[in-house]
């Protein structure tokens, strides 16, 4: 492959839109904060409805609720617009994780249900689960080692 022309690269860099740091940060803060506040709203609602539920149950229900809402919004193409506006504010909350599973599943469906939809579901979520599970097992083994040594 030929090396890209120096002048061409310079031109591309000039034409690339400059990142508007301040405005993207404010929008990420607002969107991220809002999503978390909505989550807290569901948490409080479930706590009110089911006072005997333990806190991890409430948290799981809350996450499931906002992931379901995200999946539906992604299905209608609305979450894309939230993502374009909110940047990291729409990626980092669990809703961004949900979107990263649903969006490729939808888009690659025409390649078939097994090889398109199911295969691409985890193109972004896969690495997250791999790193998460690996890290949790390391933590668990560390606990075992330290308990063995110090208790």
């Amino acid at each position, binding site marked *: 492959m030929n090396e890209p022309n120096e002048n061409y690269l310079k031109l591309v860099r000039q034409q690339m839109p400059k990142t508007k740091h301040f405005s993207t940060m404010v929008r990420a803060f607002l969107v991220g904060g809002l999503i978390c506040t909505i989550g807290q709203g569901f948490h409080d609602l479930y706590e009110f409805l089911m006072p005997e539920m333990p806190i991890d149950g409430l948290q799981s229900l809350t996450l499931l609720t906002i992931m379901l809402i995200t999946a539906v919004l992604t299905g209608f193409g609305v979450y894309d617009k939230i993502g374009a506006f909110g940047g990291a504010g729409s990626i*980092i909350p669990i809703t961004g994780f*949900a979107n990263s599973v649903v969006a490729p599943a939808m888009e690659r469906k025409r390649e078939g249900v097994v090889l398109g939809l199911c295969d691409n579901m985890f193109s972004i979520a896969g690495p*997250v689960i791999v790193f998460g599970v690996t890290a949790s097992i390391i*933590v668990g083994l560390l606990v075992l080692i330290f308990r063995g040594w110090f208790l």
Partner: protein
Amino acid sequence: MFLDYLQVFLVGGVICLLGQILINFTKMTAARILVIFLLLGVLLETIGVFQYIEEFGKAGATVPITGFGSGLAKGAIKGALSDGFLGAIRGGLQAISAGIAGIIFIAFIIGLIAKPKTK
């Protein structure tokens, strides 16, 4: 009541703001951002800091992917202490299993129903 929600908003907002700073200055993709904040959650839970953030920010700490990380670490620690080796292996995934199983099911159904936009 209002102050509680303000704290949630602040903590959740600040976590996402940090993510946006990372994106702006390193041009990282969504997958890397998610992995980094997940591992941050695992680390903060393991060294025992996360519970204080969660106490203050509630859903502001647990709704971002850091909450997933914290759940993984918490589950692994709890599992290791109660069930030993097997607990250490399965505890993490067990703690977040509702979210993972839920999103697989939801994504499959929505993926089947929704019409992709033609590009």
